């Protein structure tokens, strides 16, 4: 009995010691969190804290974590917490799926940052000033607001990652159903670590180029263009450290601005299959590199070297596309030809007509030049002959495209209008 009493008394002493130490530790922790919270709040929301503005102290944080009580069921009041860590833990404890937690936290952060930016938003935003030009929208009028928005979004993404260990953009685009990466065979084939790095590099360089666009305020001068090209080159170098050359190419065929612009211009009206597109993309990207400086030596290629390599690129493309398709592709680089194709499409004419119109140009201009350089002709005779060539050309093209088509073609084809001049 005495032995039991002794053990019990000893246990009491040990428990008191544990209690004292635990209480001291908790007080220190609370104070540290309070101090940290105050200083960080001021750093993150300088001068905009409604609590601080009212001269009040922030409410003590509810940091309690709970587990779902099988008897009482889910009580959201016990799940809610002022501490994201506890909030997330509580949601997990009731079995809430990670994507649903992500939605809740993302919505929370959205509101938080929206309120943070509210005081920066220009008052006219949200109201349509119909008498002002769209071109000089708030995007160019208020670069400060957009810069702040960009910074806030960056913070938001970082915080999201810190809380949930997930990439904000990827997660939200997947959950929203907008994300295409999840369905793309290339992205699906990449290891998770690589995808994460890829996302980080993409965001980093996107931020850098956004900054250039913001500074430019709708007018890109040559320094801006140079800076953008440099960013592109640096991005490619950074990507090359993460991706294999083949992976890098896969990434570029999907995301490159140069290739997207090519699709909307040089490839307009020229239907390509995947294989052809990849061959053209490879050539275009190689050609783009000819103008850039060497990443290590900083030197540019000489014009002779550039022209030699351009020939090599063309030859590789010719081999990939075949003679006929290569010729068609080359032809499609010409703006006037593309306009002629568009006209034939609108007027339901055979596409070959556009080719015939285009082919006429060389012969007609040769004939006109012969007349211009014929010193045996007087000025009047020369003019008369040139007018005759022009009239004949117009008649022929009208025969091919019809009157409506010819009028439309003439707007872009200056060579026809210049024949008699």
């Amino acid at each position, binding site marked *: 009995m005495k032995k039991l009493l002794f053990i019990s008394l000893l246990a009491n002493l040990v428990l008191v010691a544990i209690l004292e130490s635990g209480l001291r530790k908790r007080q220190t922790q609370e104070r540290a969190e309070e101090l940290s919270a105050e200083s960080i709040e001021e750093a993150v929301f300088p001068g905009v804290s409604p609590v601080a503005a009212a001269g009040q102290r922030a409410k003590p944080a509810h940091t309690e974590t709970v587990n779902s009580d099988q008897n009482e069921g889910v009580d959201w009041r016990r799940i809610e917490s002022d501490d994201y860590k506890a909030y997330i833990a509580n949601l997990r404890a009731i079995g809430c799926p990670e994507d649903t937690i992500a939605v809740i936290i993302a919505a929370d952060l959205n509101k938080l940052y929206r309120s943070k930016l509210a005081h920066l938003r220009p008052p006219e935003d949200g109201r349509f000033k119909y008498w002002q030009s769209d071109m000089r929208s708030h995007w160019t009028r208020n670069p400060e607001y957009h810069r702040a928005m960009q910074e806030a979004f960056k913070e938001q993404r970082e*915080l999201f990652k810190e809380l949930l260990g997930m990439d904000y953009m990827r997660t939200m685009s997947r959950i929203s159903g907008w994300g295409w990466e999840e369905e793309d065979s290339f992205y699906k084939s990449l290891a998770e670590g690589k995808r994460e790095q890829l996302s980080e590099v993409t965001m980093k360089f996107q931020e850098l180029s956004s900054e250039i666009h913001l500074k430019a305020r709708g007018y890109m001068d040559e320094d801006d263009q140079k800076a953008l090209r440099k960013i592109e080159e640096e991005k490619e170098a950074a990507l090359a450290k993460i991706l294999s050359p083949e992976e890098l190419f896969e990434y570029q065929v999907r995301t490159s601005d140069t290739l997207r612009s090519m699709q*909307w211009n040089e490839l307009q009206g020229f239907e390509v299959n995947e294989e052809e597109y990849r061959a053209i993309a490879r050539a275009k990207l190689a050609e783009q590199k000819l103008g850039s400086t060497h990443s290590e030596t900083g030197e540019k290629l000489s014009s002779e070297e550039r022209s030699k390599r351009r020939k090599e690129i063309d030859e590789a493309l010719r081999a990939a596309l075949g003679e006929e398709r290569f010729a068609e592709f080359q032809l499609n680089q010409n703006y006037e030809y593309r306009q002629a194709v568009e006209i034939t499409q609108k007027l339901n004419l055979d596409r070959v007509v556009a080719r015939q119109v285009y082919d006429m140009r060389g012969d007609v201009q040769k004939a006109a030049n012969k007349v211009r350089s014929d010193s045996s002709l007087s000025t009047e005779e020369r003019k008369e002959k040139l007018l005759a060539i022009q009239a004949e050309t117009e008649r022929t093209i009208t025969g091919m495209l019809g009157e409506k088509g010819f009028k439309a073609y003439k707007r872009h084809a200056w060579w026809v209008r210049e024949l008699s001049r």
Partner: protein
Amino acid sequence: MKPNNFLLLSLALNLGLGAVAIYIYRAAVPPSSLSTSEEIKPSVQVFRQRARQLRPEPLSGDAAAPALSDAAVADRPKDWSEIESSDYATFIANLRAAGCPEETIRDLVTARVNQAYGSQLRELRGWNPNRYWEMGRSRYMDKDYAERQRKIRALEKEKSELLISLLGVDPNEQMKRDHGQVDYHTRNFDFLTDNDRKEKVRDIQEKYTALEQEIQRTGFYDDEDRAKLRELYRQRLEELSGILNPQELQEYDVRASGVASQLRHDLEVFDVSEEEFRRMFAVRKAREEDLQYPSDPDDKAGLERRKKAVEEADAQLRQMLGDERFAQYKRSQDYDYRQLVKMTERWELPRERADTVYSLKEDAEEAVKEVRNNKELSAEQREETLRKIREETESAVTEVLGADGFRKYTNRQGWWLRNLSPDKPKPRT
């Protein structure tokens, strides 16, 4: 006290102290499921607290929140699996039964509805990740374009209606407003207050937009197409007159018509008041047809008609704006001047610098014209005078923009300087 009582008291103390120690320990240690939370910065706590303070409704964790009745407690879902439901209404009811704040319910339901429509909308917009080689313009401007646009509008409408039926509001629209985004269609009838008529106007507007897109889909359109577009707009106004009174119809016209849109574009660097815009709009609207360039560049009668219309409109605008403002207006219609204004804005220079450079351009071009028409000058004299004009002008522009500014300006917009007098031939190396 007997030794037995001491033992009992000590054992009771053991239990009490043990319980308190466990409580303190549990409160101090984060839940095991958050093993990665050690790395989370303390700032996270502040953010969450602030986010909750932003809520329009009372915090459910607040002491002020009403206590739940026993029946309500009994109806609570036991865990998330009992909250989860593929039926939106059931999902909402389950969340409410768990005491979930309305705002969180809105966030969750909106995300689910957006997800349900997301992939359909993405496909209709032509984003197929595995067909990256088809992402060019033709993909967007193909024959199905109008039909796909119609489907997109129908789906967006259906989604919005679903959200309103579930939540009483469309949080997506609210979010757009909070971000300062005003939908192109909506802003055209911001003068209307009742939603019912807004909806009807929007339906009519979208119907005619689809018809117009069918004409504009291909890259070019001629006089015939333009006439069709004008006729469609006339029909649109006629249909709208069944919903809008004459004054409202005028408000719509000054916002949504092609004339208004062109005028807004033309006033890109010329600030006007709302009143001035409306008066300028009236002038242009009255001569809408004649002010357009003929689609055939050799249509002399069309060009003459346009010239006359511009002169008449200008006379009215001069009277309206006064000589000085009218001169500024005319200048602002020139593409080169607009670029100059944008350039000075980009370099954070005063607008006056753009005016000065533009005046130098006008003066130099005038001087060159006189020299070229001067029959008394020999070819050499003419060449020398033109070269001098160019040199002086270049030096004056450099003074206004600085050497670096001049270099960048001439590389991009310096064609007019080269037109004053040809470049000196470069010495052979």
